[in-house]
């Protein structure tokens, strides 16, 4: 049995069970003189809503790529759901990401040539696990429709229109639906609100939290904007945990 399934059940009962666990991790880009990231320890418990704060250029994106298994650290371990993903082959890391992590990016989250529903169900094309979870009770499109409706989007309204017609805020909500479909254990949102105005920003956060909670996922929310952090269980400042950062910025 994969580690993910036991963790989901344990979520509410045992918050101490770590979903993300970085130990002695160091990463340097090829040909770089020194490490970009050096994190001695970072533990995120299942069900947590983490605000990961960092200025641009502080290695946020690199950290997310490491968590997603697109990059591999030179040292240390990155465990997600108890699995050290840095030990996996790249194809296994790709399918691990497909199975267990949902991503929301800053903007341009959608594939312009896919319909609204196809954009939402996209991860299920790459993950049989998420496909199965999403279709336990309804059809795949039914599940996508349910998620979109909960995020206050009416799929019927956009049925025959390209997704590029959607407003930025609507596109971000579609991206959330895509990240949530098939209930991955971990949701990583990279500056998802930076393209939204202040009102839309908080409305978006509310919806995001509600849905993340409902699917009992863990949320890592990355932003440079400290005004949002009061909404989260815990704030992690990248500058505090990244030992490479201080030296890097001194240069």
């Amino acid at each position: 049995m994969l580690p993910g399934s036991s963790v989901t059940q344990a979520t509410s009962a045992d918050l101490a069970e770590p979903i993300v666990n970085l130990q002695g991790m160091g990463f340097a880009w090829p040909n770089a003189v020194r490490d970009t990231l050096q994190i001695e320890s970072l533990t995120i418990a299942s069900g947590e809503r983490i605000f990961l704060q960092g200025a641009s250029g502080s290695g946020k994106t690199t950290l997310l790529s490491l968590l997603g298994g697109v990059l591999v650290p030179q040292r240390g371990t990155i465990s997600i759901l108890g699995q050290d993903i840095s030990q996996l082959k790249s194809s296994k890391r790709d399918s691990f990401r497909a199975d267990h992590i949902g991503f929301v990016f800053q903007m341009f989250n959608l594939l312009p040539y896919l319909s609204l529903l196809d954009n939402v169900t996209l991860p299920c094309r790459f993950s049989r696990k998420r496909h199965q979870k999403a279709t336990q009770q309804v059809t795949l499109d039914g599940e996508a429709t349910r998620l979109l409706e909960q995020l206050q989007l009416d799929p019927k309204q956009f049925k025959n229109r390209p997704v590029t017609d959607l407003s930025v805020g609507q596109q971000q909500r579609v991206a959330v639906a895509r990240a949530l479909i098939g209930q991955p254990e971990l949701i990583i949102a990279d500056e998802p609100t930076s393209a939204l105005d202040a009102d839309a920003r908080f409305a978006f956060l509310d919806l995001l939290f509600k849905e993340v909670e409902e699917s009992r996922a863990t949320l890592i929310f990355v932003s440079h904007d400290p005004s949002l952090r009061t909404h989260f269980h815990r704030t992690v400042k990248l500058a505090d945990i990244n030992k490479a950062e201080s030296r890097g910025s001194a240069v």
Partner: protein
Amino acid sequence: MSIYMLTLRSLANRKTTVLLTVIAIAISVMLFLGVETLRREAKASFANTVSGTDLIVGARSGSVQLLLYSVFRIGNATNNISWESYEKVSKHRQVAWTIPFSLGDSHRGYRVLGTNLDYFTHFRYGNKRNLEFAEGNAFDGVYEAVLGAEVAKKLGYQLGQSIILSHGTGKVSFSDHSDKPFVVSGILKSTGTPVDRTVHVSLEGIEAIHIGWETGGPTGKLVTAEEALAMDLQPEVITAFLVGLKSKMATFQLQRAINNYRGEPLLAILPGVALQELWGLLAVAENALLTISGFVVVTGLIGMLTVIWSGLNERRREMAILRSVGARPRHIFYLLMLESTLLAAAGVLFGVALLYLGLAVAQPILEQQVGIFIQIRLLSSTDLYLLAAVLLGGCLVGALPAYRAYRLSLADGMTIRI
């Protein structure tokens, strides 16, 4: 895997560029196959024109020239040969039959062939087929004519129709033999050879209309049609003649004898050998055409490469999104490979469709203008090999942007670059 639906959707989203690319490939494929088809069909058409004839004899010139003017009605004879020489050869003990040809006149652009009744018994075409009459009979009187199938069809002639022959072989003639009209006595069945475009009359008929035309125009002592009938219409010269032998073994012996004939400079050729000589002459042009059309296909594929390659940068975002939802770099490679393969395949299919459309349009024009009958048939194995080569070329060309996308998606990961 259903991710390949993504390629289709992505292509559908870029309809215009995709369509233009496919059209470019299709046209190049059509050209490539078209040249190959024309080449093959032209050869088949030529090879079908005469069969069962062992030697063609005419005035000494080039063997290809003799072949062209005697059998294909292309070009003109440089000189005539005497009736005496013809008689001599036809009485040779090895000769089974001969067919005399007297050329030089025309009817509304169609060549007139003066011959005798042996033509209808001994002339063979295609797979040793005899000429057959669709209507009527061979000419009997001096002023009777037998029409090829196309002449009758295009000019709408019936049996009993009166026609006027013109001097010379131009499309428009200013000197008509209008004083001696011919009556259509028979119409031949279609053969798919130059016979269809020929008006056949007797040698005596040719002789009769040229009384008083010895200098090339109506300058001598002219006689009426009836007066001519009373005169000696035995021709003194003919243009060429076909020879059928009793035994093939004698072919070279007789050929040598004719070529060494002392009475006048004669040339005897073997149709097959002369055809080979003709192909040899045309091979350079043929290969040049095939090479050029091959390069046109390459150009079409490079066009596709350009389109896909130039689209790569703006699609890095798309790849990052796909990577984030779990696509492997290998998937990205496959997606792009599939894209170019689909484009090439669509181009090939569309090209084949264009080819058949083009052939259907060109068939009557070619038959009428050039005299080459193109048979529209299924794709040959050579054609299929060529198409497979184009498809393979498409795949190989597609591997370049696919590999670049693969490298990019490895480097970019989930980072969205714009």
